[in-house]
Every structure is written in C-alpha cells, then in structure tokens.
C-alpha cells in the first residue's frame, strides 16, 4: 500500500496541505531574537450518520479548523490555541502564547524539535472517496448495516446505535527551528451495538469496520460480528471466583497495549511515573514478547509520515525477546533523558501541546490463531470485552482490575457465557505470564493492533 506518487487533493484544501503549511510558516517566521516559535494548524471535515429503525435518526456534517502556537524563550514555553484560522486570530494566538511563556519555570531542556536528517517514508493514507461519496450513499451504508443486524437472528431485540462516520484530516507544522511538515489522512467507519434477548435476559454485542475509504467497509461482516457477540452472551451468569488462564479477544488486547503504552512514554519514565523506569535491558515479559511501535506501517490506523513536532516517524522497538529495549520520546522528554527524540510526539489536536506517545503498536505475531490458542490452553476464560479501564488500571503502579464479560473455555472450546466478573493482576505480572500471542492480527482504530492473547494466572472475582 505504500505509494510514492502523491494523489491530487480536493477540498478540504483544494490545493492539498500547501496552504496550511504556508499559514504555519507565516506564524513561525515571526520569531524574534532568542525566541523559538512553532505553529500547528489543522483542518478537518467530518460526516456522521446514525440509523435507527429503518430511518436516518441524525445526520451531521462539520468542518473545523484551528491553530496551536508554542513559543519558547529563555527555556520557558507558552502555548495558546484558537478554533479558527483567520489572520487576526493567528496574530492574537501568537501574542497570547508569547505572554504565557513568561510564566513558566526556566528549564534548559525545553525547546522545539530540530530537523534530524531522517527522511519521511511515503504513505498514502488519503482516500478521496470519503470526500466524494454523496451523503445519501453514506446514509445507505448505515441503513444497510442496521437492516442486516435486525435480520441476522430472531433474538435481536433492538439496535442501541448504528453509525457511519468519516473524517478527512489535514495538518501542518512549521517552526523557526527549521521544521516544515504536513500530513493528511482519511478514516471511515461503521459501528453498531446489537441488543439480543431471550426472556428477561438482554445482552449487547458491538461490531465495527474501519478503513481509509468506503471500499474498506464491510457491513455484512460487521452485522454478523455484532450479533454473534450479543447472542453468545445470552444466559450469561456470574462465574465462581478463582484463578484462570484468560484468553483476550483481539480488541481487548488492543486496549491492554494502549494502557501499557502510557508506561512506555519517555516523559512518564523520566518523571518517575512508570513501572518500567530504570528497567531498560531487563526482562520485563515472556521470552516470546516483542513489542514495536511503527507508524511507518501503512496498515496501522495511527500510521503517519511525521510526528506532532514534524520529525519523520520511524520504527521503534520497545520490547524484544521479553527484554525492555527503550521508550518513546518527544523532543523535551528526550533532552531530559539525555537522548534524542524517537519522533513519537503526539497531540490531541490544535488545542493541546505535543507529548510522547505511541501510534502504531504491534506485538510480533505467534504461530497460532485464536481457536488454536484456546485448544492449547484447554480451560480458562475468554474475555470478549472489558470495562472500567480508566478506573481500575494504574500505569504507574501497574495495578490491574477490570470488569469482564465473555465465555468460559472448556476442553479448548467455548462453554457457558459469563458476565459481571472482574479479572485482576498487575501489568508487570501479566507481561511475564503471556502464554500465547495470536497470529490473527487485526488492525484497529486506536494506537495498537489487536490479536488473541493468552495470559496465565489471573484472578477472576465473581460469585
């Protein structure tokens, strides 16, 4: 999927990202003596359609744009943002960022990124169809998905939501330290929550499909997935407490990697806020464990040619053979740790400053698929979904406790469904207890791919 030819762009930005880069440059070049300025500008168009009961319940379309400006002067950083791109707004934002810089504590490590000579890979993350397809076609996709879900099984009682969404997003960053980079991507997705019921019992199952363009969406498979997940939980009961091998659904694995990524942030590490701090070169996981963050892999939804500070993205090996190899760094965190940026700055949009983070995590796949892993472990708990990740997992201490629903595994196959239980351990122990890493890699929206993962000796709390 890597292409070197750049496709012509259409609106937003009839001329691609060149105008955005020009806007960013105009701000950056106003740097005074002894001052560094970075401007990040972005622009996006979005469409969202929700179907319900054979009708379009809502349809929104939106275009938004904004600018975030960082000013560094005397080791002090100030930031300001605005949700508009007119000249007067940009000027006001720069003035405000300059003023804000005066209040920070001077810090020799604070400063903007400087070009490091790494050439950007060429990625094609833009699918024109997202902009060209008429709204009616988008609505038809949502309606088709809802119809398929309702028709898939007589036990489907209701559809809690059924959404089509797309976004075309462009950004540019320029700085007085020589940074000039731009990027653009499209994403479109279908997601649906099916409610299946039998007697007084109702269960839910979520299905989704995502890609760069319309051709990547698969309403038929999405519907089957949602309905299967809901129906197989019917009759679920609370399991007895005990210690079990757990088999994580690929989506759960992706969430788990997302949590672990906060402990791999170089910023968290240098500030003593990660259980990985001081452990580079040590065994932190099972021997088979290899974890890489590679935003240059076009299959990843987080793929990007540049990081949020405008450096070229690169492949970073974090864990290899179970040994911790390193962390992801933005420019400031790297200077603080006496190393260099791994081009891993990420930002939540124009209204936030860059921080170190992962974009495209992947565990190197093992040799077995999901079914084979279940056959190997024999007995355990298959975890279909987890809840309470934000309230029950602490990436500083490593404490891990989440709500779970899924199915017991007996003699290597699915047995009775289970709900209202928790699974608990510590992240440290879970990494050491990885038994199997699936070869069934699923590229999921978010910062990590998913695959089946078996982890030994977790506490299940239930009845």
């Amino acid at each position: 999927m890597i292409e070197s030819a750049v496709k012509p762009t259409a609106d937003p930005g009839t001329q691609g990202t060149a105008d955005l880069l020009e806007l960013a440059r105009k701000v950056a070049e106003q740097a005074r003596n002894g001052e560094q300025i970075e401007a990040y500008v972005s622009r996006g168009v979005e469409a969202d359609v929700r179907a319900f009961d054979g009708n379009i319940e809502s349809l929104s379309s939106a275009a938004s744009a904004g600018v975030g400006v960082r000013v560094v002067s005397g080791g002090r950083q100030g930031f300001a943002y605005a949700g508009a791109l007119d000249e007067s707004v940009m000027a006001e934002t720069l003035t405000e960022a300059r003023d804000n810089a005066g209040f920070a504590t001077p810090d020799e490590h604070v400063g903007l990124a400087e070009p490091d000579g790494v050439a950007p890979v060429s990625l094609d993350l833009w699918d024109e169809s997202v902009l060209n397809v008429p709204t009616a076609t988008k609505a038809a996709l949502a309606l088709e998905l809802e119809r398929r879900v309702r028709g898939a099984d007589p036990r489907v009682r209701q559809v809690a939501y059924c959404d089509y969404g797309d976004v075309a997003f462009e950004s540019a960053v320029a700085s007085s330290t020589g940074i000039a980079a731009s990027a653009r991507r499209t994403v479109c997705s279908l997601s649906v929550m099916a409610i299946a019921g039998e007697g007084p019992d109702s269960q839910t199952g979520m299905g989704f499909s995502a890609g760069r363009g319309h051709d990547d969406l698969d309403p038929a498979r999405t519907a089957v997935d949602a309905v299967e997940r809901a129906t197989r939980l019917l009759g679920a009961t609370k399991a007895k407490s005990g210690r079990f091998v757990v088999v994580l659904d690929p989506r759960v694995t992706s969430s788990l990697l997302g949590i672990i990524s906060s402990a791999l942030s170089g910023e968290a590490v240098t500030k003593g806020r990660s259980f990985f701090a001081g452990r580079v070169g040590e065994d932190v996981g099972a021997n088979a464990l290899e974890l890489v963050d590679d935003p240059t892999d076009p299959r990843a939804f987080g793929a990007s040619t540049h990081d949020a500070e405008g450096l070229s993205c690169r492949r970073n090996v974090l864990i290899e053979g179970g040994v911790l190899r390193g962390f992801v760094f933005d420019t400031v965190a790297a200077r603080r740790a006496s190393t260099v940026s791994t081009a891993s700055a990420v930002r939540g949009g124009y209204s936030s400053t860059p921080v170190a983070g992962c974009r495209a995590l992947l565990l190197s796949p093992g040799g077995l698929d999901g079914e084979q892993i279940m056959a190997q472990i024999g007995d355990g708990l298959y975890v279909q979904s987890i809840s309470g990740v934000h309230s029950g997992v602490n990436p500083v201490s490593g404490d891990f406790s989440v709500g779970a629903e899924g199915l017991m595994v007996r003699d290597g196959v699915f047995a009775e469904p289970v709900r209202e239980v928790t699974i608990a351990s510590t992240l440290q122990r879970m990494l050491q207890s990885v038994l199997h890493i699936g070869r069934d890699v699923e590229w999921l929206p978010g910062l990590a791919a998913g695959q089946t993962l078996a982890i030994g000796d977790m506490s299940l709390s239930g009845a």
Partner: protein
Amino acid sequence: MNHRASSAPPLVESALVERVLGAALAHGADFAEVFAEDRRGTSATLDDGRIEELSSGRDRGAGIRVVVGDTTGYAHTADLSEEGLLSAAQAASAVAHRGGRALAVALEPSSAPRSSDVAILPEEVEKARKIELLARADETARSSGSAISQVSAAYGDSRRRILVANSEGVLASDDQVRSRFMVTCVAVGDTGMQTGYESAAFTVGFELFDMVDVEEVATTAARRALTKLSARPAPSGEVPLVLARGSGGILFHEACGHGLEADHIEKEASVFVGRVGEQVASPLVTLVDDGTMGPEWGSFAIDDEGHAASRNVLIDKGILTDYMWDYLRAHKEGRVSSGNGRRQSYRHLPMVRMTNTYLMNGESDPEEIVAQTRQGVYVAKLGGGQVNTTTGDFVFGTAEAYLIEDGRVTEPLRDSNLIGNGPEVLRRIDAVGNDFAMGGPGTCGKDGQGVPVGTGQPTLRITAVTIGGTSSD
C-alpha cells in the same frame, strides 16, 4: 447576578438569529435551533517541580439543528457571520425533503437566573496569581512525606457563553464560569509506586480559592499515595461495602443514572424501561438529579437547548418516578424537557445528560453503619466507573479503600474495580446515613462527548458487591 457578565453583547444579534432560523425552516421542518458558543479558557500545569506551561485558548462557533419527522440534521460552523450561519443552516436543513413553507420565528427572550453568581471572573485575575497556587500545592505535597517522589498540579478555568434559540420561540443565554484545581502525587516504597489524586472544582470564578484551600487538596492527594504504599491487595469476591459520605455518588451515576436517560429508554437499551411506578431500589433510596445546585460542578442556568435547569426526583423511597429528558425525547412523548439536554460544545448534538446526581440523606448514624459491619470493605474515595445500560452491569473503581474487620476500619487496600448490576445493587442498600456530602467533580463521557457532572451521597452500605482484587484469603 453579575452585571459584568450579563452586560456583554449577545453572541449573535436576535434579528440575525431569526433570519437563520427562517432559513433552517425554509425547506420544511418541524423544529430548528441555533446554538452559539464562545468559550475561553486558561490552564496551567506544574510537573516535576516546574511550571511547565501556561496555556490559553478560544473556541467559538454555532451549531444548527433541524428536525424533520424522525430525522435530525446538524451542521456547525466557526464562522458567526450571517454568511457562515446561513450556510450551516442550509447544510443542516438538507435533511428536509418536504416542500418549503416560509416560517417566521418570533423569539421570546427568557430570563433564567444565572447558574451561580460569579464574584471574580478568571480572565480578570493576573496569570501570576494562578501560577502561584501551583507552587504552593507542590511544596505542600512534597513536604507531606519523604516517600512522595513526584507531584503534578493543574489549574484550569473556563468561561462559556452560550445562546440558544429555536423555532418554538425560545431565546435564552447563559454565561457559565468554571474553575478547577487538581493534584496528583506519586509515592515510592518497597512495594513499588502508588498514586494519589484529589481535585476541587465548582461552577464559580477565581473565588474557588476562597472556598477551597490548595494546601488541603495537595495534602489529601499526598496522603492517598502514601497510604497505599502499605496497602494490601484488595480481596476477590463478594463483600459488604460501606461508602463514606461524598465518596461514591458515581455509584448511582453508573448503577442507574445512565439507565434513566430517556434516549436509552427510547431505544429499549436500559434495564429500567417500562418500570416507572415500580419499586426499583431499597426504600432507603431517594435519588435526585439537580442542575440548579448553586456552585456545584454540574450546575447551569439553562441547559444546551435553552431549557432552565431543574431539580428532578428520579427515585422516591425506592419507587422509580421519572426518567431524564431532553427536548427531542420529551417532545415525542408530548411532555416538556427536564432540563437535561446537554452537549460538549457547538460541534455536538445535544442529548440526555445528568447534572448533579445525588442520594438524599437517610436516618442512620454513619459510625453505627461501620460498627455494625462485621467484615467488609470501606471506600473513602471512588474513582471513575462505566455501565452497560442494557444489562445494567457496571464497574466503579476505588481510589482509597480499607478493610472493615469486626466493625472497625483497618488496613488500606490497593486500587481495584468493583462490579455489580444496577437494579440488584440498588435493592441491596440496607443502610443510609444522615451525613450527606457532595463528592468530587467529574467529567461524564457518553457517545464521545464529555460534560461536567456532580455526584453526592451520605454514608451507605451495600450488603454484597463483587470486588475485583487478587487476594483470595
């Protein structure tokens, strides 16, 4: 009423609002609405002993909603000029296929009271004074114990001016000022690292710092981290649970709050569908959602559909009395909104959201509740939670918890999640104290939108709930 705030010019002139509504209705529609918003905010963070950054920002725009039959069209723009608004109105009204019928809208300005009287607008306070609070918190937290290894503190203020007008003649505005302060500490010991968090947030201006003491916020955060250094793993399995006053209103937010939102009810995606008038909780439970609660975090004068905030009793002595409503769901049922139509920003469609949700006082002596619990878990502070409204299963995390042994609060426990089923847990409440307190402020996330909410409750006991620790003894 704050005269400085209310004398500001309207976000959009009434005559223009009327023209935009007219354009939105031009292709035939049952309802049209203009929501304009101007939000400014400042935030400052201290981390690792340094003021890392002061940030300020401004976002402004309008969202136009057009309803035709069962379909809602929505479009937003950052351009508040006539041209920008009219083009958004046209985009939103593209859902309408009926023939045009020119409609004129006459707007009726409402005079809702302000959500709270703001004494000191944050924008009028020097930035240096905001920064100084952070340094004080850092110093206090670090002096709380040598095991405190890291401290971060954050200050934030926002001023959100909104204007809502719709085709039913509503024209209302609000000026919502919020201020918050947060401290997070890391403590290091033989057992590894632990974290402690505390925050204070109200719908007020800079006078927040006359109401709360930043040193106290810092001390509490540090104490939580230090206490957990000597904590043992939480038990695994079902236990009796006592929640301290103001510690865990999030329990009700998750156990039944979301399930009582009319949008979930409409789609039969709630265990509380069709149960109004029934006993859904212990008779000790009277639950209220109240957007009018003075300076609380979830308060406002008008919701984001222009409806005045109100106090709604959801469960009265265990009987389900009503759901929470926004305009759209209420209209379908031929009733009025309960003032629960909220949205994160002008970029979002409104939906049914909670405000300040709390359990009313009971009659028990809180100390007696603990003394009469032989074995169990005492929660001094809950973290966040999550619910599946369809099944009613919900989780909520502990941020400070202890064992109860022989009627006394004893050893601290490491953080874990608790899991229960809403209707079951509500029935298992067997004691409610007379010591009501509001709890910590929160941001409630639903369908990708975050809004500020408050929670509160007196001390209470649940006879059995599953705690997700790792200790089986």
